């Protein structure tokens, strides 16, 4: 049980605090800026691991909760994690030090600004994952955008301005719809508190007519679907990922895309279950199109980074499919796949960034035969590619397989179509690897490229270990998700709930039994709920 009172606040704001430290340094003191940023992010990761120690996997309740009045009576500073957000927080704290390490030498301009932006993003991302107040959530959500916008626009490559503007336009478009929906919810519920709103919905105290629910669902979903990105809302992604600096791509692909899938799982589906059920077939089909489409387009890319970017469209399609299959196995798989994709695709971008540091290009034609001058780097690259193409017993396989087996239970055809993604991922990754690494060295100046240095080896070896660990020890993760996923499953389980919502008078639960988790009667949940109500 989360007993450490301020732990979540510390985890959320430590990066911001270290930003303050950075701001005190002279902006040309690059060495100390890097060191402090790295030290802060590593400390952040270590502290975030404390969450694991105190986490109780037996309950679906939010843990490490913090609840304070913030603005007026309706807006609260309400934090908490459950089995769904726990590992996403860890993913963010894990990838940030790697992103800092990979920028060690490649960022030479405005170094201070860069690391400030990176650490602000970290706080914002963690904030999104731990906010239990819709207003707070929205603040953090928007806070992720601005530093990322500058990161792409200022430290990016090529058409960076176009990419940055496209990124922010797309996302803002979704954000605004979501804001409208949040305000709408507030108007109905009189609070921004997520558990409270959930409780009101669950107990039938707020009822939306079907078309309103659909609209609200749509507004939230569109915002998240753009972030994921779900086909056909994905075209900001290849540009943003390709033009962003390496650290930006790692954070974008590794964590920020998961803000979307997390949002779907946290808000869209549990708050509007009927609409989610109605829209599920459409969304699943879009997800499957994304899987196949992303893979096919990735195959024919001539730019290595853009290729990796398109693979995200394909992989995130799996995640969305897993969620909308509404099956406890596939949802756990979807969460696991979010983590896997963060690690593996993040790592692919790290590798591509290392090539860019040497050659200042992403053109596949400019590479070829690189395994000869840099065997270590290319071996790691292949290893990461294998994890990305879901080779058992590496991490990617677990996530994909859980999604498939869960989806198959209710929808044979969806799962069968999605399986084709496993063939296509082998095609684009192995072909890319061949064109980059195998054969004779094709470009003369590649002949003497240095192999991975110690810093790069540290990054890649860390990732490789995590890839293997997540491949063989998945129960350590899924066991902690189980209760929360079952809770979501109960919130969305169709007919009885739908009937009860439609006819609230007939089956409204007793008033003092209406904590959001009342359907899963576990003593701990009740304790938390009561404590919160008392305050």
């Amino acid at each position: 049980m989360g007993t450490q009172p301020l732990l979540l606040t510390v985890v959320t704001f430590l990066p911001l605090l270290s930003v303050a430290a950075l701001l005190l340094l002279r902006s040309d003191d690059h060495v100390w800026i890097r060191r402090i940023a790295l030290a802060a992010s590593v400390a952040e990761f270590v502290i975030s691991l404390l969450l694991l120690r105190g986490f109780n996997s037996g309950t679906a309740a939010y843990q490490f909760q913090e609840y304070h009045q913030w603005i007026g009576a309706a807006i609260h500073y309400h934090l908490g994690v459950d089995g769904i957000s726990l590992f996403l927080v860890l993913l963010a704290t894990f990838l940030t030090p790697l992103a800092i390490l990979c920028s060690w030498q490649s960022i030479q301009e405005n170094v201070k600004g860069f690391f400030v932006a990176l650490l602000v993003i970290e706080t914002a991302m963690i904030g999104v994952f731990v906010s239990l107040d819709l207003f707070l959530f929205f603040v953090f959500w928007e806070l992720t955008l601005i530093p990322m916008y500058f990161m792409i626009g200022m430290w990016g490559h090529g058409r960076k301005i176009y990419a940055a503007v496209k990124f922010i336009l797309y996302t803002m478009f979704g954000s605004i719809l979501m804001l409208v929906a949040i305000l709408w919810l507030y108007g109905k519920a009189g609070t921004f508190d997520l558990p409270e709103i959930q409780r009101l919905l669950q107990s039938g105290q707020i009822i939306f007519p079907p078309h309103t629910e659909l609209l609200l669902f749509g507004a939230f979903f569109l915002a998240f679907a753009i972030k994921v990105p779900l086909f056909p809302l994905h075209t900001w992604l290849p540009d943003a990922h390709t033009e962003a600096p390496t650290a930006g791509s790692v954070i974008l692909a590794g964590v920020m895309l998961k803000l979307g899938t997390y949002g779907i799982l946290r808000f869209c589906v549990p708050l509007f279950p009927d609409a989610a059920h109605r829209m599920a077939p459409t969304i699943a089909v879009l997800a499957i199109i994304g899987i196949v489409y992303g893979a096919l387009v990735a195959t024919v890319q001539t730019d290595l980074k853009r290729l990796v970017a398109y693979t995200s469209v394909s992989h995130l399609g799996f995640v969305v499919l897993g969620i909308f299959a509404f099956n406890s196995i596939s949802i756990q798989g979807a969460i696991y796949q979010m983590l896997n994709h963060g690690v593996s695709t993040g790592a692919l971008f790290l590798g591509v960034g290392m090539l860019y540091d040497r050659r200042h290009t992403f053109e596949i034609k400019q590479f070829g035969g690189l395994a000869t001058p840099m065997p270590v780097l290319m071996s790691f690259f292949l290893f990461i590619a294998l994890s990305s193409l879901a080779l058992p017993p590496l991490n990617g396989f677990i996530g994909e397989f859980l999604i498939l087996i869960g989806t198959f239970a209710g929808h044979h055809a969806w799962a069968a179509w999605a399986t084709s993604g496993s063939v296509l991922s082998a095609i684009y990754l192995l072909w890319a690897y061949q064109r980059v690494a195998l054969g004779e060295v094709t470009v003369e100046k590649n002949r003497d490229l240095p192999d991975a240095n110690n810093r790069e080896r540290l990054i890649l070896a860390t990732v490789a270990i995590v890839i293997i660990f997540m491949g063989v020890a998945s129960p350590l993760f899924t066991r902690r998700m189980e209760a929360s996923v079952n809770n979501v499953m109960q919130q969305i389980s169709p007919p009885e709930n739908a009937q009860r919502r439609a006819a609230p008078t007939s089956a409204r639960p007793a008033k003092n039994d209406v904590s959001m988790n009342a359907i899963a009667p576990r003593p701990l949940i009740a304790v938390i709920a009561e404590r919160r109500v008392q305050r």
Partner: protein
Amino acid sequence: MPILSHLWIILALPLAGAAINGLFGRRWPQSAVNSVAVGSVSLAFLAVAELVREFSHLAQGQIPYPGDYFTWMIAGPFRVDFTLQVDQLTIVMLLTVSFVGMLIHIYSTGYMAHEGGYYRFFSYLNLFMFFMLTLVMASNLIVMFVGWEGVGLCSYLLIGFWFLKKSAADAGKKAFITTRIGDLGFMVGVLLVFWKFNSVNFGDIFRQAGQMPAESATHVGVLTAICLLLFAGAVGKSAQLPLYVWLPDAMEGPTPVSALIHAATMVTAGVYMVARMHPLFSRAPIAMFVVAVVGAVTAFYSATIGLVQTDIKKVLAYSTVSQLGYMFLACGVGAYAAGIFHLMTHAFFKGLLFLAAGSVIHAMGGEQDMMKMGGLRKKIPVTFWTMLIATLAIAGIPGFAGFFSKDEILEAAGAGPHANLWLWLLGVIGAGLTSFYMFRLVFLTFFGKPRFDEHQVHVHESPKNMTVPLMILAFCSIFGGWFAAPHLVGGTEYFENFLHPVFSSYAVSAVAEVQVRVVDPTLLPPGYSAPSPVMELAHALTSWPVIVGILGLLVAWWFYIKKPDAPRRLAQSIHGLYLLLLNKYYVDEIYAALLVRPLLWISTNVLWHGVDQGLIDGIVDGSARVARESGAKVRELQSGNTRSYAAWVVIGAVGFTVLLLGILGMVVH
């Protein structure tokens, strides 16, 4: 029971070898790499030998003997444990894999001695052993799939071992992707299994399947679907029609790799899988029939291509595809034990053929074209004699290992409970073709006059570490069949009896009855004196494989020794057919034209340039342009740097919010 209760040791040994050589081997001398690689595999073989001893003390009730380790996946009702098991089928596979694997490791220390990346080669080879042993010891479908994909990975790495050659890198990639296409079926099959049986453990699946009635041609159900899907995986892995195309290309890999992975072990994984899943297949006659047809047709088809190839390894590759076809034919007609038997003898003689071919190539300084060989008999006698023994074995000449196993398969195809005259006929013709192309290989390579410049090529016999494995495998190629000698030569069917507990458990009662009726005359109805006409015919034809085998030898002799001019004249007289065979029925070209190129074209031009950049970005950029133009006035007030973009984004956003709130309000009310 040290090994039986610690099955993981058999896996840990080669894995440790792979890890040690992979991490440190680069800086070590060859001798150190050798001792780690060969040592780990030899210890694994010894462990297997000890396992066999311990296993023989088990009562039938204790089999399959389990080894449970850790929970690998758990999510809701779905759970997979990392579990192993040992039964008679596993024992046969373990012995074959570890024994042949050990010999090939030893051989490789000679064959690869002058190659760069020595440590890398042995690291991959050890890793392969780890995955292959995992595959055969797995006690559930998912752990089996780990081995299944893992051997595919090692195959990829080893085919492309000489990655500087584009053809090698291409071949590795092709192998991985083609088998993955099959694995797509396998995966869906596994999904269906879990959906149907709520478990992926062999024991649970078989127990439930054992209580299900057999499906039939008119009653096609979920079992048939499962079997066909799983079989798709086998078709990819074991290089059957239509996914066999990767195996001939895989010959780009070093020859020991071809021997171990692409002849003796990995490619037989599909056969093993079908045999392992026999309780399901036996209840799905349509699936069984498909397995048999695919096997028989592949056996014949691939043999025809082998007739005209001139690359010594390509001939052997098509021969492997063909022989794998026989194994599937056996499984398809319900003679699983015969299929596994052929799997084992094939591992001996085909492993030997490849190793001997490697020795020839080694002796010739890298030449693989048989047209540039000839007359090598005296110069490399050990290679010649061992290769001749293997050829006699594969041709099914009586007394050699292949005779017993192939004979059993064809007997089952011609006279068993699922006999089919056409499949039998394909098998018999294929046997004749096999004999022909194998003796053609021997005659072209070892007989006649040298067709190379003897001053330039210094032909030399291979070192001991290569020839000794050849001799051991030659011994097995002769006597490997004897302990399974079927009744017709007066032996006891030890092999079939040994496997009997595996294949008789969960057997379909109907099939069992048929067998009983055939075997036990007391159960025959009164007045029933003679076997059925099919049986009678089949028994009369039992010797046909032998006859065509000898016929093939004679024809090859006539063509390549007696009248060396004849092949060319024949090729000219039937030029079209010859070209068709030489170009392997143009299947690669057809796949490229029908699948690969259209897919790439559509992906590039329709999806990427069309939908992504044209359609979607057109809309996005278009609306952005509208916004920008309408915001142009605002923009002019700004300095024109990035901040101005942010500004108009915010302004646009606010305006848009107001607009949307209005629209939303109208819609909702």
